[in-house]
């Protein structure tokens, strides 16, 4: 490793790292790129399309070439920019997108075939023969395309997210950002200063202009120290603000431990949602290059980046210490680089300046009015061709810096689709006038890049922003700077008949743009999409403006007329892990558990996900080898003795108030106002469009007090709907409602012996049929004074009750009922048996209430009262709904032991199985131990008139077809005798 003098690296802290298996040394403070350069490594990767050898082109996140794969195994991280990868001990990196060694990539053949791969070529071929696209062409293209590879293993690291709020968010910690933050910080505003770099200072760390006669980094350190001391300022290095969203909300990623060796404990990255009252965009600017023939060799980089490497990292851009460095520029910027190189003792070949009147600032050769017209050196620059006064000469050079001017970083200011504004003097697009509300661009991002100007601009901008919040911020002392603003001339590319790269990563050349122009793909979005310009991982940060200039030249339009592409989040790539946050696997969404969950677990129940809930599915007993045995047993014991099932998941809404009855009358399709106190009624709710919304029970506990139950799935939607009906439609009604779903543990006690069992826990309450008939309800106490609610309702069709007690006692009540019911053969049953019982009874559930059905289809059309208004009543009478002849029926397979799967379609026997002859579908299906046969429910055209008919239930998807007899949906006790006596 050879290092220049100075720099902001800690030479007392050497680090070792590996690239393509070879071990190198670097220092704390290095990036992977600066360390590679210090080790004389120029070649680091291959381009996307032509697999051209590529080196380090920039010193920032705009890097198009130096993409590497970090780590290995499950932590493998492809497409990582070497230029912003903070070096740590043991860092493992490898190059990508080549077959065989980096130096001898087999796919380099693509470069030889380049003429075939001109812009848009693939739209014009690979069409014959048809089948070959998927079989041959596409797999080949895919194999060659893509950059790095994922490991296909789950990401083992930990990710976090959080929310921050501040008065002022300062994006970028360079000259302008630091003065903005300090101005606001001293004024007492709450400030967040975020910078994607691991060290604040921005270009101040890269340039050599003195601040207060000392190195810029000293002023930066002093300023950061004061900011750190202010409790109202939060410093966030290693934090990329990637998106500007509505109302002052920003997305940011903090790389918490990416700069440390991987660890299983530490959070790797944190996603922050920052809500800022105002923001200062001090994101700096990105230097552009000047396309010329063969301008993509390793060793050719931006002149500004070259300054960063020598000044901040003491890394020379060349392979060998005595290699000459050349500079190609259209302005003074290139000369700065020459001076800094000389200052560090790096041999300078000279500055090739496109301006005939090129200035000279020091002891180096200047080629005025000259251009670079060619380069040599496949794996690293060896020579360049300079054209001056009509003469071309080849000169040896180990590196070439290119300075084409600076593009303000308007990305975040353009996320709200405001268009950047062209500034002819600065030869650059400035942030849009109609940018995000409350955002103030400052410094280089606003086109004010000169250090002295940027420092002042940051302070002034912060003052403006805070003034809008009613805070007056005073001036801060600004450091003295001896800098003169750079001048430059418009010069966009060096004409050539060969290839001059505009977009390095995607291999888009000036010729490709010319071809797009020739083929009338001239609108900038066509240009982009036809050539893939700006679509690589760098989003064309170093390419787009140059491309616009070339297209403008071809069309004869101006650059602003040619337009810009739209800027969209994220500013730089954001890992899906950090966006996905910490909650992966089983914690993807929270769980709702029933009050008897712990008990069911002890019983060895199998559980199933029902929306947010976990429900006991069935309770297997020793010797039961198949879930069907268990479910059949559970079902039969409910029909024969008594069963217990936790039905807490059903939504419960407490409705009170003088107008409660009237209100419920309007939200239920059937009449509720006439319901007597102490009674329960089954109710149907419709959507306003007349279709079925939900069903459930409505119990009247007092004149002005009802308890409404909903299906598990619709609990939230029904509550919202009822609040809408009250607040938005009928606010005049005096009614209050609130959800009490979680407050009560509700247990269904079902079966012929349910009354007997309950009699053993109620505190002197008469459960006789006379005192407490079917559909009765009451508040009472059980188990010695525990308050409870009892409803005599039945989903199974048996004599049944549902008893509710305060949730914390649900577990104990279940145990008590199990103990007291032993001699009655009490059995717990789960959601599977519950489903079988309701299908046997022909009760509708989710599959029947799927949002596409009507009360009429359920056979409950008469429930939609014509005597009163209710939500959905009017529209339920529309032609299309009224004439829908499909009805819910039961289906018995002629072959009792064959199941007609739900989702089968119904046909008249012998009819062709086409969409035209489709007569309905099977909604629910199960084995009925009671009938000793599979049974099913389904909607069938004119179903009620076809009882007894044998039809075909077809499941072509799985190659099945069944003959089934149409029967009543009520497979058991159609008269309902069982639940009444």
């Amino acid at each position, binding site marked *: 490793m050879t290092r220049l003098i100075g720099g902001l690296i800690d030479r007392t802290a050497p680090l070792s790292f590996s690239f393509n298996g070879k071990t190198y040394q670097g220092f704390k403070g290095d990036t992977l790129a600066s360390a590679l350069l210090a080790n004389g490594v120029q070649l680091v990767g291959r381009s996307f399309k032509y697999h051209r050898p590529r080196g380090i082109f920039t010193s920032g996140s705009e890097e198009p070439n130096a993409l590497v794969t970090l780590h290995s195994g499950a932590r493998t991280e492809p497409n990582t920019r070497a230029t912003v990868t903070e070096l740590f001990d043991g860092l493992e990196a490898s190059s990508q997108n080549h077959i065989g060694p980096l130096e001898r990539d087999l796919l380099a053949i693509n470069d030889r075939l380049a003429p075939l791969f001109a812009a848009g070529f693939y739209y014009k*071929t690979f069409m014959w023969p048809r089948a070959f696209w998927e079989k041959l062409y596409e797999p080949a293209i895919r*194999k060659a395309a893509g950059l790095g590879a*994922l490991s296909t293993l789950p990401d083992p690291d930990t990710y976090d997210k959080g929310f921050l709020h501040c008065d002022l968010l300062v994006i970028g910690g360079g000259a302008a950002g630091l003065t903005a933050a300090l101005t606001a910080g001293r004024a007492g505003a709450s400030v967040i200063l975020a910078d994607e770099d691991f060290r604040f200072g921005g270009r101040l760390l890269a340039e050599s202009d003195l601040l207060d006669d000392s190195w810029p980094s000293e002023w930066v350190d002093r300023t950061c120290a004061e900011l750190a001391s202010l409790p109202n300022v939060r410093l966030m290095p290693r934090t990329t603000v990637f998106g500007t*969203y509505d109302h002052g909300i920003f997305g940011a990623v903090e790389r918490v431990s990416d700069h440390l060796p991987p660890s299983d404990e530490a959070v790797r990255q944190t996603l922050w949602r920052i809500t800022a009252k105002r923001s200062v965009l001090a994101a700096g600017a990105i230097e552009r290059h000047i396309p010329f023939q063969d301008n993509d060799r390793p060793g050719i980089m931006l002149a500004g980046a070259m300054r960063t490497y020598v000044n901040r990292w003491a890394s020379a851009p060349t392979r060998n210490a005595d290699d000459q460095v050349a500079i190609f520029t259209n302005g003074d910027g290139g000369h700065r680089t020459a001076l800094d190189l000389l200052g560090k003792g790096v041999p300078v070949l000279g500055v090739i300046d496109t301006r005939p009147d090129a200035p000279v600032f020091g002891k180096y050769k200047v080629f005025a009015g000259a251009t670079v017209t060619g380069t040599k050196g496949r794996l690293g620059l060896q020579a360049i061709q300079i054209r001056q006064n009509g003469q071309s000469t080849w000169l040896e050079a180990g590196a070439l810096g290119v300075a084409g001017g600076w593009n303000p970083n308007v990305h975040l200011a353009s996320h709200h689709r405001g268009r950047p504004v062209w500034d002819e003097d600065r030869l650059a697009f400035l942030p849009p006038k109609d940018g995000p509300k409350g955002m103030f661009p400052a410094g280089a991002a606003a086109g004010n890049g000169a250090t002295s100007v940027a420092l002042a601009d940051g302070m002034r901008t912060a003052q403006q922003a805070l003034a809008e919040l009613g805070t007056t911020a005073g001036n801060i002392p600004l450091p003295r700077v001896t800098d003169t603003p750079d001048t430059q001339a418009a010069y966009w590319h060096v004409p050539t008949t060969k290839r001059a790269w505009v977009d390095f990563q995607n291999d888009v050349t000036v010729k490709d743009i010319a071809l797009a122009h020739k083929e*009338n793909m001239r609108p900038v979005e066509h240009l982009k999409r036809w050539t893939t310009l700006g679509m690589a991982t760098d989003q064309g940060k170093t390419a787009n403006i140059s491309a616009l200039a070339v297209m403008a030249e071809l069309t004869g339009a101006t650059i602003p007329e040619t337009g810009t592409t739209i800027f969209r989040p994220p500013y730089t790539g954001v890992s*899906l892990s950090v966006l996905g946050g910490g909650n*992966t696997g089983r914690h993807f969404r929270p769980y709702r558990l029933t009050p008897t969950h712990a008990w069911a677990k002890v019983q060895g129940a199998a559980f199933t996900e029902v929306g947010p809930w976990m429900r006991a599915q069935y309770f297997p007993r020793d010797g039961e080898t198949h879930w069907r045995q268990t479910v059949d047993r559970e079902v039969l014991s409910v029909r024969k003795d008594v069963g217990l099932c936790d039905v807490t998941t059903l939504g419960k809404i407490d409705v009170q108030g003088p107008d409660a009855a009237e209100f419920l009358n309007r939200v239920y399709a059937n009449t509720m106002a006439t319901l007597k106190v102490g009674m329960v009624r089954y109710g149907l709710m419709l959507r306003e469009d007349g*279709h079925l919304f939900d069903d459930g029970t409505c119990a009247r506990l007092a004149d002005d007090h009802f308890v409404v139950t909903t299906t598990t799935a619709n609990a939230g939607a029904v509550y919202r709907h009822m609040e809408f009906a009250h607040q938005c439609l009928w606010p005049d009604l005096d009614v209050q409602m609130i959800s009490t779903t979680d407050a009560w543990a509700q247990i269904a006690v079902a079966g012929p012996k349910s009354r007997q069992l309950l009699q053993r826990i109620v505190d002197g309450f008469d459960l006789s049929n006379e005192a407490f008939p079917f559909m009765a309800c009451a508040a009472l106490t059980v188990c010695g004074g525990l308050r409870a609610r009892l409803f005599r309702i039945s989903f199974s069709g048996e004599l049944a009750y549902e008893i509710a007690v305060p949730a914390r006692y649900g577990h104990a009540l279940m145990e008590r009922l199990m103990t007291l019911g032993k001699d009655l053969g009490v059995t717990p049953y789960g959601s599977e048996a519950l489903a079988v019982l309701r299908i046997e009874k022909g009760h509708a559930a989710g599959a029947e209430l799927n949002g596409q059905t009507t009360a009429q289809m359920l056979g409950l059309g008469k429930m939609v009262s014509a005597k009163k208004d209710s939500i959905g009543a009017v529209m339920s009478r529309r032609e299309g709904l009224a004439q829908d002849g499909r009805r819910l029926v039961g289906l018995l397979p002629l072959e009792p032991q064959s199941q007609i799967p739900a989702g089968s379609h119904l046909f008249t026997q012998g009819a062709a199985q086409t969409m*035209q002859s489709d007569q309905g579908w099977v909604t629910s299906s199960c084995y009925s131990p009671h009938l000793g046969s599979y049974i099913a429910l389904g909607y069938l055209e004119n179903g009620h008139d076809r009882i007894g008919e044998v039809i075909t239930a077809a499941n072509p998807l799985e190659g099945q077809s069944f003959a089934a007899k149409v029967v009543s949906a009520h497979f058991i006790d159609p008269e309902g005798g069982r639940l009444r006596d």
Partner: protein
Amino acid sequence: MKFSGIKVLKEALTGHKGWKPLWRTPDPKPAYDIIIVGGGGHGLATAYHLAATFGITNIAVLEKGWLGSGNIGRNTTIIRSNYLLPGNQPFYEFSMKLWESQEQDLNFNSMVSQRSIINLAHSDAQRDAYRRRGNAMHLSGADAELLSREQLREMVPFLNFDNARFPIKAGLLQRRAGTARHDGVAWGYARAADMRGVDLIQNCEVTGFDITDGRVTGVQTTRGAIKAGKVGVAVAGSSSRVMAMAGMRLPIESHVLQAFVSEGLKPLIPGVITFGAGHFYVSQSDKGGLVFGGDIDGYNSYAQRGNLPVVEDVAEGGMALMPMIGRARLLRSWGGIMDMSMDGSPIIDRTPLDGLYLNAGWCYGGFKATPASGYCFAHLLATDTPHETATAYRLDRFHRGYVIDEKGVGAQPNLH
């Protein structure tokens, strides 16, 4: 000019001097037999089919921006015919058949790639619903297979099978589904229409309709008045605004749908996969980017950009379903305007105004429908009768009660 491998080779050897513009840049004529408003996928496909299938070539396509600048230029490129309802499924299957001969019909490689789609089911109820849908697909002549958890483990082993909040129970597979290069589709239709004499007029915004006693006779544009025998409107994202100029209110709300693409990666994901317990679907483009999306943001918007919560929601879904993608980076997100209809299904119909025809309400399913939408809209414009696969897409179906509600959520557009 005919595109072919030979042609590409010849041009490669002669410095690409022979390529011609993909289409002309004509000025609008004073009058056309038919004007199509909207130079997006559906508008261009309609113009192509009017010319190629129905022999009507005195046509102009008026585009306010650049060709293909609508949702055809901003989508996740999925093609499939896996619908449930009789009003929809035959139409989408017709579209799938047209996709299958797309390149040959248009002499343009829009990279139709039948790499399959899998819809995952995470509950028995969901599996049953997919069975009902898969059977409907069979009834319409489409292909569909119901995969068991074991078959899925075999086919897409990288999914989260063992540590999931909502375990994968089954999957509905359509092998003929896949993806197509969205811009290529627009360009293919544009070039093919232009070659048949259709005038494609860019930067020409319609500012009004000429209506005389109940009949539309032409349009006012930023490039002057243009007369027309018939006017067909296919302006997804602007339907309500454009039809308001004709005094119509539509059963449509416009919402923003975000979509996302990752940095380029070596081949990883075989086909299209959709999560059934969260908002996430994904495929991988030929260039290697993971192209993925989720649900609409959920509020009315014409801003063509969305917000962060949906970005997080989609990433959460992706990480829950396939945790291997965690180390990939989101490269770019974008937002398109979705004209969400009140039942989630489109409208291809005449309007109360003679001579004015509407193609709208595609929600976020418009891309896959492009070929059939163009064909059926052209059929309606040319013959004044709906194509047999598009008879249900009537404008009056809402009032009459014949909605085509695949999701069963009723008149709430942000849930479709």
